[in-house]
C-alpha cells in the first residue's frame, strides 16, 4: 500500500512518543481517536515549558511572568479564532470541554430564551451531552424536545428536519459529525432552516473540528462546541464559539474573579466578552497547549487531514466488507462520513471483542459510546468502534482486520461465535 496522501505519516508518527509503546507484547495500534487523540511532543513540551519558565496567573499582574502568561494565553485564543474562522476573539470562550460548552448555552441563552410551549430540536445521533441538557431544559421550562430521526442508511433525515423545525422552535442542537456513525450532518442546511424561523443553531463540533476544515461563519452557526483533547491538545479544556451579538446579550453563568467589571458589597457589573463567561483563574497551561495543537494541525492543513482520513476510512470500509459476522453501523459509503467505524458482532459482545483485541495491542472503544438511545435504536446493546486520525495507517487497518479474524477464530472455537 502506498497511500498517495499529502500527510507524511511516518514523520507525524515520530512526533508522538506514545506510539512507540508496546501493549501486551505488541506495538500499540491506537484506534480510539474519537474518544481522545494522542499528543505530539510539541504539545507536551509546551506544557513543560509553561510550568518551567513562565507559570503565572493571567490578567492580574504587572510582573513579567504574568505578562508573558497572559500574552501566551490570549495568543492561543487568537489561534483558535483563526482555526474555525470566528469573527473575533471575543467570540471564543474557554471551557472545560464540549459538555461544559453545551451546558453553558443551555443554562444561559436557553434559560433566558426558552419558555413553556417552545420547541427544542435535536437529532437521533447526539452524544448524551447534547441530549440530556435539552431534556432537562425542556422539563424545567415545560418545553417540547423533538428529535430529527436517522434514515435507514445512517444519514440524518433532512426531510423530517424541515417538518420538525417550526415557528415554535427556539433552538436547534445538532452534532456536526456523529461519534458513533461517523455521519457528517449538513449543518448549513439546518442553520438556514433554524434561522428561517428565528431560532438559533448550536453545533456539537467535538468530532468535526479535529478532523476537517470548519468555518463557523460559512456554516452560519450561532454556537459551536468542541474539546481540545480530541485534536492533539490536553484534557480539561474546551471551547465555546458564540456569535458575538448573541453572547453579548446572554446573562452570565458562573460568577467570580475575571468575569466582573466592578463589585460593591451590594452589586456587581460584568466584564466584557469573552471574560464574562470565564469566572476564576482559567486553565492557562492547557489553553496555551491547545494553541500549539492548533499550530500543529494548521501546519499539516485541515484539507490534508480530512483527505488522509477519508482515504483510510475508505480502505477500512473495503476491508470490513470481508468480515461476514461483523455488522457496520452508519453509512457504508465514504461520502459525508468521517473516520469512525462502529460495528457489532453477530454473537460476541463488544467487551469480549475489546478484551481480545487489547491482547493484540489494539485499542478500540466498546460499549454504548455515550449514545444509548442511538445504540438501542439499532437493536443492539453495545458496539465496538475504531476511529482514525492523522497518525494511523492502512497497515494498522490490516492489523485490526487480522485481529478481528483471529478473535473470530478464538470465540468460534470457544463456541460463542
Amino acid at each position: 500500500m502506498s497511500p498517495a496522501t499529502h500527510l507524511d505519516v511516518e514523520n507525524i508518527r515520530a512526533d508522538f512518543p506514545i506510539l512507540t509503546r508496546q501493549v501486551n507484547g505488541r506495538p500499540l495500534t491506537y484506534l480510539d481517536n474519537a474518544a481522545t487523540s494522542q499528543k505530539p511532543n510539541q504539545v507536551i513540551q509546551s506544557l513543560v515549558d509553561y510550568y518551567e519558565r513562565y507559570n503565572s496567573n493571567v490578567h492580574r499582574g504587572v510582573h513579567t511572568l504574568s505578562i508573558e502568561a497572559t500574552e501566551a494565553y490570549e495568543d492561543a485564543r487568537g489561534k483558535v479564532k483563526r482555526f474555525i474562522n470566528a469573527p473575533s476573539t471575543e467570540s471564543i470562550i474557554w471551557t472545560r470541554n464540549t459538555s461544559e460548552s453545551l451546558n453553558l448555552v443551555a443554562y444561559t441563552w436557553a434559560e433566558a430564551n426558552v419558555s413553556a410551549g417552545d420547541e427544542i430540536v435535536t437529532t437521533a445521533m447526539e452524544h448524551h451531552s447534547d441530549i440530556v441538557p435539552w431534556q432537562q431544559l425542556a422539563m424545567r421550562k415545560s418545553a417540547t424536545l423533538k428529535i430529527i430521526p436517522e434514515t435507514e442508511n445512517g444519514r440524518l433525515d433532512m426531510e423530517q428536519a424541515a417538518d420538525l423545525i417550526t415557528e415554535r422552535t427556539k433552538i436547534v442542537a445538532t452534532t456536526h459529525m456523529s461519534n458513533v456513525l461517523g455521519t457528517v450532518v449538513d449543518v448549513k442546511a439546518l442553520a438556514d432552516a433554524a434561522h428561517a424561523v428565528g431560532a438559533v443553531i448550536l453545533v456539537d463540533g467535538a468530532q468535526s473540528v479535529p478532523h476537517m476544515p470548519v468555518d463557523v461563519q460559512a456554516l452560519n452557526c450561532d454556537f459551536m462546541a468542541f474539546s481540545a483533547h480530541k485534536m492533539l491538545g490536553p484534557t480539561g479544556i474546551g471551547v465555546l464559539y458564540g456569535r458575538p451579538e448573541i453572547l453579548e446579550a446572554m446573562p452570565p453563568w458562573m460568577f467570580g474573579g475575571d468575569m466582573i467589571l466592578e463589585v460593591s458589597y451590594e452589586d456587581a457589573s460584568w466584564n466584557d466578552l469573552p471574560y464574562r463567561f470565564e469566572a476564576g483563574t482559567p486553565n492557562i497551561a492547557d489553553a496555551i497547549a491547545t494553541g500549539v495543537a492548533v499550530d500543529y494541525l494548521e501546519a499539516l492543513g485541515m484539507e490534508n487531514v480530512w483527505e488522509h482520513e477519508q482515504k483510510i476510512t475508505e480502505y477500512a470500509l473495503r476491508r470490513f466488507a470481508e468480515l461476514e459476522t461483523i455488522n457496520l453501523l452508519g453509512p457504508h459509503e465514504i461520502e459525508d462520513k468521517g473516520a469512525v467505524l462502529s460495528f457489532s458482532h453477530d454473537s460476541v459482545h463488544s467487551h469480549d471483542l475489546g478484551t481480545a483485541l487489547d491482547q493484540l495491542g489494539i485499542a478500540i472503544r466498546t460499549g454504548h459510546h455515550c449514545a444509548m438511545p442511538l445504540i438501542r435504536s439499532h437493536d443492539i446493546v453495545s458496539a465496538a468502534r475504531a476511529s482514525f486520525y492523522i497518525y494511523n495507517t492502512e497497515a494498522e487497518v490490516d492489523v485490526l482486520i487480522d485481529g478481528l479474524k483471529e478473535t473470530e477464530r478464538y470465540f468460534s472455537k470457544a463456541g460463542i461465535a
Partner: protein
Amino acid sequence: MQQGLGDLDELYQEVLLDHYRNPRNTERLDDPTSEVDAINPFCGDEIHMQIGLYGDTVASISVTGQGCSISQAAGSLLTEIVDGRTTTEARELRELFREMMTGEEVSDEVADRLEDSLALQGVRRFPVRIKCALLSWSALIDALDKVAPTKP
C-alpha cells in the same frame, strides 16, 4: 514477547463459556418475593434478577439480562450456588465472591463454597472486567435488601 490470544483462556474458562452459551435458571418466577434490574452505567450490561423466598431461604431464583459473556455467565453461575441457601448464607457467598475478585487468597474451604463460580477467578487478571463479574452479585444484595435491608 508476543502473545496471541492464548492468555484469554484464563478468562474464558470452559465453565464460564458453558454458562454463557446455556444460561441456567432463566425462567421468570410467577410470584417473586423481590426483583431488581441492575445496570452497569459504564458499559450498559443489564441483569434482571428475581428471587422467591420461603421463610428465610432462597427457594427460587431467576436471572436474565444482556451484556458481555462475563456478566451473563456470572449471573447464571450465581443462581446455582445461591439457590436453596438462607439469606445470610447468600450474603456470605457474596462477600466471599467479592473477596476472591478483589484479590484475596482463596482457601480450599472458600473454593468449595463458591463451587463453579471459582472459574471467574481468572477475571482478576483483567481488572477492567471485574465489574462485569460483580454486577449480578450486587443485584442479589439489592434484591435481598428490598425484603430485609442489610444492617449498617
